[in-house]
């Protein structure tokens, strides 16, 4: 089995005691499918843990190594349950996505074209009695010619799903759907051949179109969330320059590096694996940007022999490192793994409508049988009409549309607000949220450094001081140097510029030696207590002091006040330093703020909150937030963060600002309310219509009308949400 080999090559890190694998499953659409896969895999000997998420189509299995059960047996069990396992990553998955997307688009396209045409032709039969019989028959035949391919091509997944469910003796959502389709289509074909009576071809076409559209949206959402791990892995360089003992250098693939190998990282490049700084390095200290891993915005200094993690950016001189782990064992790889696992074990939100519908259909089947029997004894000529009326009038169309229609409408409204929903059930979960956890950098604050304050200490004008500072910082890769860029004057020439790591920059401008950095460095005095300012001065003394940092977003304060007004608790969880977090918390009036959290700490914080009964909404940015976003009840990434955090999150904020968050929460709450109305309406309609149909009081045409109207009512009710939001 080649899929098994591909999986094993990628996923056998804990080989030995316990083995663990995460893979995708095709053809899984409901909670029932997830349960049957779970059951099939659990039945194997030696399987320790199985978790199946139908939202992301992921299956995560842990099993005892060296036993009778191996990957081929697990994949075999999944195949035996009627589903197709697919490797999680790489070209195979990409090709799989493309194939699935094209097939789904074709089915949707055919259904929409067919639905419109069938409706156009068959509307001639609606309630008009003076149509002549030959013309009516022409319309019936045309409807049959159009809708039959739609049923067997566009509707194939539902028919196949129902067949699979029946073979495995269970009632999934596809069973009522397929039954309704076939029972509406079959009598229509019979009536067409007999050239009289009702046909429901247009209803069949419309139903398939609605269902296909729902499946298409669901598929898009799934594909987007799956590419996140790939995006994270891509941020590492594929090649590194290896340095041999004899000084020879050679470009090799990063995956070939193993512990002990030495390699060189140029200025501005990303370190491929976890490594330590060569003790024989020329510089005593080097400046690094670890924001990819820790979220810490300021550059950090590392000395000889210190450990740095893969994903770190070298800001200083070219650096010779000694690898301490291979790519697969490095920090970033474990973040990827964390992300995979978090996504695979995402808590399963009960899909009440799905389950209700499968109970519902069992009841309907029973009722139809009872109706048939009763009418058979009373008056056999009415039996078929009554059974058909029962089945058509109770077709769970409205029930199965109730939730997706609302979600689609709410998604549209959120998109207008600048929020993209990347997971279908995010809206439902967002409505339940009571705690909001914000990352600081890039979320509450912007992502680029800015000038917060300027103090003039000498005779120099503000513009002049800023221009000198900007000229000195011109060559610096330090993240905070960005703050000075807007004040740079190209005419100002800097000579003999030198960056001293951890201290500052010096350079000669117009014959004057300027220094910019810590006060002790500028005044060339022994070290003293640090403050948050950067000083500019020459030999004669200090000229100015600048406070540089990442400013809060313009609307952060109002947004948080509005969120608090909606009974939401607000917490800051940041990887940044205590002082930076405390000042942001003070400015925003937040009481709970946690600083210096690693990705694991953040997950622990979220899990503690959730264990305490809270429903947690995490808003973050940066790769280090990927796992924590995936472990939250619902998560949102800022659009300008790195690609990974975006794709791991349920929501993606595309506008650069937080102002839309309160409205997103209120939209989600409104969506939940409308969903409940819809479910109530669909159930009430069905419960009221069934006895009438069973008593033979509802002719089939009225049943068809009722079915369409109840669906229409549900859809129209949902459309209210898609109107432009009130200001």
């Amino acid at each position, binding site marked *: 089995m080649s899929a098994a080999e591909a999986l094993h090559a990628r996923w056998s890190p804990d080989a030995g005691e316990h083995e663990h694998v995460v893979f995708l499953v095709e053809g899984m659409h409901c909670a029932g499918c997830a349960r049957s896969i779970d059951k099939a895999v659990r039945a194997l000997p030696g399987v320790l843990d199985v978790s199946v998420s139908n939202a992301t189509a992921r299956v995560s299995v842990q099993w005892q190594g060296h036993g009778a059960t191996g990957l081929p047996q697990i994949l075999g069990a999944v195949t035996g349950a009627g589903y197709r396992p697919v490797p999680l990553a790489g070209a195979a998955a990409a090709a799989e996505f*493309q194939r699935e*997307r*094209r097939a789904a*688009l*074709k089915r949707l*396209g*055919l259904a929409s*074209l*067919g639905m419109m*045409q069938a409706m156009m*032709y068959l509307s001639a039969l609606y309630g008009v009695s003076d149509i002549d019989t*030959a*013309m009516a028959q*022409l319309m019936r035949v*045309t409807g049959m*010619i*159009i809708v039959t391919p739609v049923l067997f091509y566009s509707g194939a997944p539902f028919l196949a799903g129902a067949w699979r469910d029946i073979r495995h003796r269970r009632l999934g959502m596809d069973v009522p759907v397929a039954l309704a389709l076939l029972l509406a289509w079959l009598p229509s074909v019979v009536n067409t051949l007999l050239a009289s009576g009702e046909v429901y071809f247009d209803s069949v076409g419309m139903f398939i179109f609605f269902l296909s559209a729902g499946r298409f949206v669901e598929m898009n959402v799934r594909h987007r969330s799956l590419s996140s791990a790939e995006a994270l892995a891509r941020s590492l360089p594929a090649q590194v320059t290896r340095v041999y003992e004899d000084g020879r250098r050679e470009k090799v693939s990063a995956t070939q590096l193993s512990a002990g190998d030495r390699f060189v990282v140029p200025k501005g490049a990303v370190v491929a694996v976890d490594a330590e700084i060569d003790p024989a390095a020329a510089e005593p200290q080097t400046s690094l940007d670890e924001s990819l891993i820790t979220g810490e915005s300021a550059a950090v200094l590392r000395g000889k022999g210190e450990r740095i993690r893969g994903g770190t950016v070298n800001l200083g001189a070219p650096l010779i490192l000694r690898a301490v782990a291979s790519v697969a064992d490095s920090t970033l790889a474990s973040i990827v793994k964390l992300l995979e696992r978090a996504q695979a074990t995402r808590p399963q939100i009960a899909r009440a409508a799905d389950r209700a519908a499968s109970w519902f259909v069992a009841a309907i089947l029973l009722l139809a049988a009872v109706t048939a029997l009763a009418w058979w004894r009373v008056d056999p000529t009415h039996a078929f009409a009554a059974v058909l009326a029962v089945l058509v009038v109770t077709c769970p169309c409205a029930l199965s549309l109730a939730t997706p229609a609302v979600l689609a409408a709410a998604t549209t409204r959120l998109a207008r607000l600048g929020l993209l929903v990347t997971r279908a059930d995010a809206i439902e979960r967002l409505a339940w949220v009571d705690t909001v956890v914000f990352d600081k950098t890039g979320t509450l604050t912007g992502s680029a450094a800015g000038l917060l304050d300027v103090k003039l200490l000498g005779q120099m004008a503000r513009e002049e001081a800023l221009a000198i500072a900007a000229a000195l910082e011109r060559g610096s890769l330090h993240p905070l140097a960005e703050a000075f860029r807007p004040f740079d004057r190209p005419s100002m020439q800097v000579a003999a510029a030198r960056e001293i790591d951890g201290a500052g920059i010096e350079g000669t401008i117009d014959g004057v030696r300027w220094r910019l950095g810590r006060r002790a460095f500028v005044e060339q005095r022994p070290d003293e207590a640090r403050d948050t300012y950067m000083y500019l001065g020459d030999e004669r003394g200090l000229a100015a002091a600048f406070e540089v940092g990442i400013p809060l977003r313009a609307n952060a304060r109002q947004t948080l006040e509005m969120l608090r007004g909606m009974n939401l608790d607000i917490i800051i969880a940041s990887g940044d330093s205590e002082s930076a977090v405390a000042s942001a918390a003070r400015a925003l009036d937040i009481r709970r703020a946690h600083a210096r959290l690693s990705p694991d700490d953040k997950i622990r914080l979220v899990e503690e909150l959730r264990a305490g009964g809270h429903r947690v909404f995490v808003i973050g940015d940066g790769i280090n937030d990927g796992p924590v976003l995936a472990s939250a009840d619902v998560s949102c990434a800022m659009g300008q963060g790195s690609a990974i955090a975006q794709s791991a999150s349920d929501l993606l904020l595309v506008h650069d600002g937080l102002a839309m968050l309160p409205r997103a929460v209120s939209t989600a709450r409104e969506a939940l309310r409308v969903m409940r109305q819809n479910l109530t309406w669909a159930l009430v309609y069905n419960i009221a219509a069934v006895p009438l149909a069973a008593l033979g009081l509802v002719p089939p045409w009225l049943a068809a009308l009722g079915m369409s109207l109840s669906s229409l009512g549900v859809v129209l009710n949902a459309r209210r949400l898609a109107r432009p939001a009130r200001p």
Partner: protein
Amino acid sequence: MSISWLLVLLGLAVLGGAVWALFWAIDSGQYDDLEKHASAALEENREIPDSAGQTKV
């Protein structure tokens, strides 16, 4: 009456043509990535993907 048969046949032919055109467009990869082509010009060192959606690097 016969004119309605002709018109219906014509309508079905147009529908068939539309379905064929849509399937052809999907199979040639035109719907695979709706954003890539628009942003391809902004990216450095990257050739614009060909019609099959394959990127040559």
